[in-house]
């Protein structure tokens, strides 16, 4: 088990366009949760300390709320925000963008155990317990 996950993509658009698609609620609504039958209602105050609310609606009409607060914003490069859902609370998401000519490499890191100050020094020992888990399962 890891305490975080990383997802990476290379997108065929420049970083300014990707950044806009990740930060402008009107544009986010056009793709976020844009799966057959699903829809999303998105509201955000895109500034450090500002909050967002994403209500994702299933084809059956069930609503799944997601909320959070922006922690760090670097135009065209980085967005850090907290993430709460029905499943998790106070998790941290970091999206980084890297320009590759006319493409953009997007890296998302989702951390589920958010205590960065003390985590680093215990990482090695902690890895032991987690590899024990792998043996146990």
């Amino acid at each position, binding site marked *: 088990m890891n305490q975080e996950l990383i997802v990476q993509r290379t997108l065929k658009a420049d970083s300014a366009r990707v950044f806009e698609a990740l930060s402008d609620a009107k544009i986010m609504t056009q793709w976020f949760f844009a799966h057959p039958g699903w829809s999303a209602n998105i509201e955000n105050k895109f500034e450090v300390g500002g909050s967002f609310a994403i209500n994702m609606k299933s084809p059956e009409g069930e609503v799944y709320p997601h909320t959070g607060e922006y922690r760090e914003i670097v135009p065209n490069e980085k967005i850090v925000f907290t993430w709460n859902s029905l499943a998790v609370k106070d998790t941290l998401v970091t999206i980084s963008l890297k320009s590759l000519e006319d493409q953009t490499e997007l890296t*998302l890191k989702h951390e589920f155990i958010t205590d960065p100050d003390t985590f680093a020094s215990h990482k090695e020992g902690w890895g032991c317990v987690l590899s024990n888990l792998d043996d146990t399962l």
Partner: protein
Amino acid sequence: MVKYETQELDNIFHALAHATRRDIILQVAQQEMTVNDIANHYDMSLPAVSKHIKVLMKAGLVIQKREGRVRHCRMDYQPLEAASDVIQKYKAFWEDQFDALEAFLEETEPNS
């Protein structure tokens, strides 16, 4: 697969979000220990250590067995499995979102 409720998952992540508690887990993962054994490793009071153990018990990560006045602690890995499951689901969730973003960027024209 045991189905964990939100509150339980939150308890698990909360329990893991403290260095001392992660350290306690590392110890009891290796061998069963009494609360006093655990407390001897730390420069803090027995009630303070007990409090951390209670948080771990609430998350289901530590199971306690009483023998008279002695409390034995051992680790249970099952909550870690549940936490791991949520993280895997979130990986699929973000992959889905970026599939949609990729399609959106390819279908729409740049604004400029």
